[in-house]
């Protein structure tokens, strides 16, 4: 039993707390207020929502195919700019967009950034009826876990869908994994994780706060094994990409050739005091960093006069991003810590190449091939970038019968060097036109060469795919 004074104190406290307690109990009024907030936010962004139906070119099993897919996007300017994911439009030059009022408007891809998986489209304004109501791009820097957000888009093609959830975490680090087609995502950004439902087709659509501002671009989900695990690209990064695309049609980045690990992996070699520095895990051969004498195990303290912060892995995308913003061709200084002593290295960053490269189908012979990009050459440890990489071989084709395999690099054809995909394309076209058979392909297979005798028969007239086709 409480003594009278204590009892009085408790009563007093309860009275003081009462308004707060009442506020904590969700009243009908507050639920309705929340509901109105959701409606308001929806109304601000829904008119800017775009349903995108691109026809993508895919290369599968040695053949080029066209497939129709659906994705999402958001209009962010009155002049008809649409922000979406790069993987939605990929190599398409023009796509068909359906606006929220069901108008179908064609759009042109004006810039892409495969590194961040973002692309900007321009609607054909002549085809747009009435004024556009663009969404406001907000800020992602001040988002908080637990904050309400909505995802809008066309999950599985179901257009104008809205799902509601909260931000699960604001800085999810997903390891940089090169995707099978060479595209990379996540090198330069961490991700906003949300439990708002995100499904295929949501890609490119906006993640919106309750003020109706776009705070992220929905890009990924972990299907099957995961539930309610959606990932959006922070809008702060997207804004920077948009700015560069609008200004120069592309995003320029530079490359030093360094792979980073958080300082925590450096153990005793790291300075314990302070938070500065990041561990250099790997230095690419023939890169600016290699030429500057940078070595794995070095700890970078400063680059171009700016302190390096990479104590935890979540900090690495930001580090990579600002390093990639250093202008290519201009010498910079790196302050390194090696064996406890500081040293300075001078390096000149180079342009960062696109992770992609073109791909072509050689229909008559039954295979597809792509460029040997610098990134691919590096991953395959090739000594040079000559040749064309076989990406697929169609079964029962001439190429298949002759023994050509995906992964082979066509180096020579009938004893002539093949420096790249373009030359291969021209030569093949010429051979097909003049119906030459057999043709000897010399391919690089790992560290060996293989000699492949292709024996096409030309019973039908040559395909009229080339400009110089006879008849």
């Amino acid at each position, binding site marked *: 039993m409480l003594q009278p004074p204590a009892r009085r104190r408790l009563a007093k406290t309860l009275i003081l707390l009462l308004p707060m307690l009442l506020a904590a109990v969700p009243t009908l009024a507050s639920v309705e207020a929340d509901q109105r907030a959701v409606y308001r936010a929806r109304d601000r962004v829904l008119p800017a929502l775009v349903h995108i139906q691109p026809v993508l070119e895919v290369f599968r099993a040695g053949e080029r195919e066209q497939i129709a897919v659906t994705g999402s996007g958001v209009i962010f300017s009155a002049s008809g700019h649409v922000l979406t994911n790069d993987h939605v439009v990929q190599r398409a030059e023009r796509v068909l967009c359906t606006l929220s009022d069901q108008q179908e408007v064609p759009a042109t891809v004006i810039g892409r950034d495969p590194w961040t998986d973002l692309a900007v489209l321009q609607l054909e304004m002549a085809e747009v009826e009435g004024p556009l109501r663009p969404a406001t791009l907000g800020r992602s820097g001040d988002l908080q876990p637990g904050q309400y957000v909505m995802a809008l888009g066309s999950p599985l093609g179901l257009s104008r869908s809205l799902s509601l959830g909260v931000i699960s975490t604001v800085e999810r680090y997903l390891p940089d994994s090169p995707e099978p087609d060479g595209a990379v995502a996540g090198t330069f950004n961490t991700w906003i994780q949300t439990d708002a439902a995100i499904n295929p087709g949501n890609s490119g659509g906006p993640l919106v706060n309750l003020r109706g501002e776009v705070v992220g671009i929905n890009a990924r989900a972990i299907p099957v094994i995961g539930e309610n695990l959606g990932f959006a690209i922070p809008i702060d990064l997207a804004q920077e990409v948009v700015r560069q695309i609008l200004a120069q049609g592309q995003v320029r980045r530079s490359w030093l050739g360094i792979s980073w690990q958080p300082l925590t*992996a*450096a153990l005793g070699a790291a300075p314990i005091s302070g938070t500065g520095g990041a561990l250099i*895990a790997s230095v690419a051969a023939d890169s600016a960093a290699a030429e500057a004498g940078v070595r794995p195990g070095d700890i970078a303290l400063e680059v171009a006069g700016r302190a390096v912060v990479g104590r935890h892995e979540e900090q690495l995308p930001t580090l990579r991003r600002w390093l990639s913003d250093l202008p290519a061709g201009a010498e910079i200084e790196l302050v390194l810590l090696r064996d406890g002593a500081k040293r300075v290295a001078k390096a000149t960053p180079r342009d960062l190449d696109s992770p992609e490269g073109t791909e072509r189908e050689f229909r008559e012979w039954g295979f597809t091939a792509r460029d040997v990009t610098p990134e691919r050459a590096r991953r395959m440890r090739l000594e040079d970038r000559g040749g064309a990489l076989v990406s697929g071989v169609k079964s029962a084709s001439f190429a298949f019968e002759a023994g050509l395999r995906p992964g082979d690099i066509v180096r020579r054809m009938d004893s002539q060097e093949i420096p790249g995909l373009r030359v291969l394309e021209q030569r093949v076209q010429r051979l097909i036109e003049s119906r030459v058979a057999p043709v000897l392909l010399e391919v690089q297979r790992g560290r060996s060469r293989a000699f492949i005798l292709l024996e096409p028969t030309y019973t039908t007239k040559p395909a009229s795919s080339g400009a110089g086709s006879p008849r």
Partner: protein
Amino acid sequence: MRGWATGLVMALTVLGANPLPAESSGPGATLAKLASSVVPLRYTLRPQEAPTGGEGEKVEKVVCGILVSDDGLVVIPGDAFPDPGGDPRLTLEPVAFTVLGSGEAEHPATPVGFDRDLNLGYVRLAAPLPAGLTPVRFETDPQIRIGQEVWIVGLLAERYEYAAAFWPARINAAVEKPRPMFSLSAPVLDLAIGGLVVTPDGRALGLVGEDVLPPPRSPGDLPQNALLVFGSFSQGPRVGYPMLFPAPLFAASMASPPPLESRPSRAWLGITMQALSRRLAAYWKIDGIGGVIVTGVLEGSPAAAAGLQGGDVVLSLSGSPIPAREDSDLPLFRQQVERLAAGEAVPLRVWRAGEIRELTIRPEVAPRTSFLAEEYRDEAFGMTVREITFDYIQAQNLPVDTAGVVISELENAGWAEVAGLAPGDLVLQVDDAPTPDLASFRAALEQAREARRRQVRFFVQRGVETQFVSVRTDW
């Protein structure tokens, strides 16, 4: 499968036990006597080395053996004998050889040899020979003709107590490649592999051997009556096609069985290759019976020293032309190379871009592959590493002078695995000390152990990039 069943002569004897119930004179009796040379032989297959977490599987198998000498030599199919160089934890090895006699009688035998080329194994019964067994005498010059009538002498299944059985057949083809052999018109059952082939009047012509085929690219490529046997999981099943091996073919190997534990120091040239197909030969206008296209030359190898180049076509080795037309002919060329003496100058005739050149090569003893590589296991860290070998360097496209140790195995939830090390990682340094070989790696871990370091930093190459992995210890 039906035709021969009617002609099947049933169990004339239950091994060496009962007097013959059939005719006691005439040609039938001559044949029946041969049954006393055909014996069921049982062995147990078990891993050469116990794999982690148990003894590994044991399999018992019975094959048909032929007693060929008074001192108890028995020839058996060599399927059970593993190829040298397999991973010892994945390679099954035959042990506990036993000749099954009549009733419950068991006669132990010891393995004495294995002829890898002919896929024949040799075991020896302890003296004196069990009663009822008589060695067979093969014809020294059997004079085998196509169309000739023969009997295959083998064994029936276990439920018929491995009774000797006779199947009629005819010689239906003679082949020269890869060795002189004859094809038999009757399908050959499992327990007739290793059996005798005799004339109707009881002369032993040879035995039912297996022409071991190169591993098929897909199961569909197998001949219909090919036999799938397994010696080593890591090297894939050995696949054989039953053939009559005439006695002279294996006379020498029978006289002195090739020793078992021979991990022969084989010679090598250091090239990767492709067969010169008829079509490629026509494209390059190369006459002859075939050849070997050099598709790669390993740095520092005898081939590199001899000046061989990718794209060269080797037409003859030591003066003998190379009859290679398809990639399935390449094993023959490899055998030809393996038999060369290391260090001896061997002439090579080579086609290069339309011209014939004569080169001289000095083969060397083949370097170890990763299967034969030395390993070191550290129980505390829960990891096994092996020395780096040329095939790993080749496969990973690494510089030839790459030095390090390769993680071959990690214990589940051991220190190393928990830290994120992965099999296949190339360990370059441990706590900043380079680990170019097993000794230095071992020393580095030893040092960490003595100092009871709480974290040990590994510097590894994984794929194209290097990275640091710190392993937390719990001494």
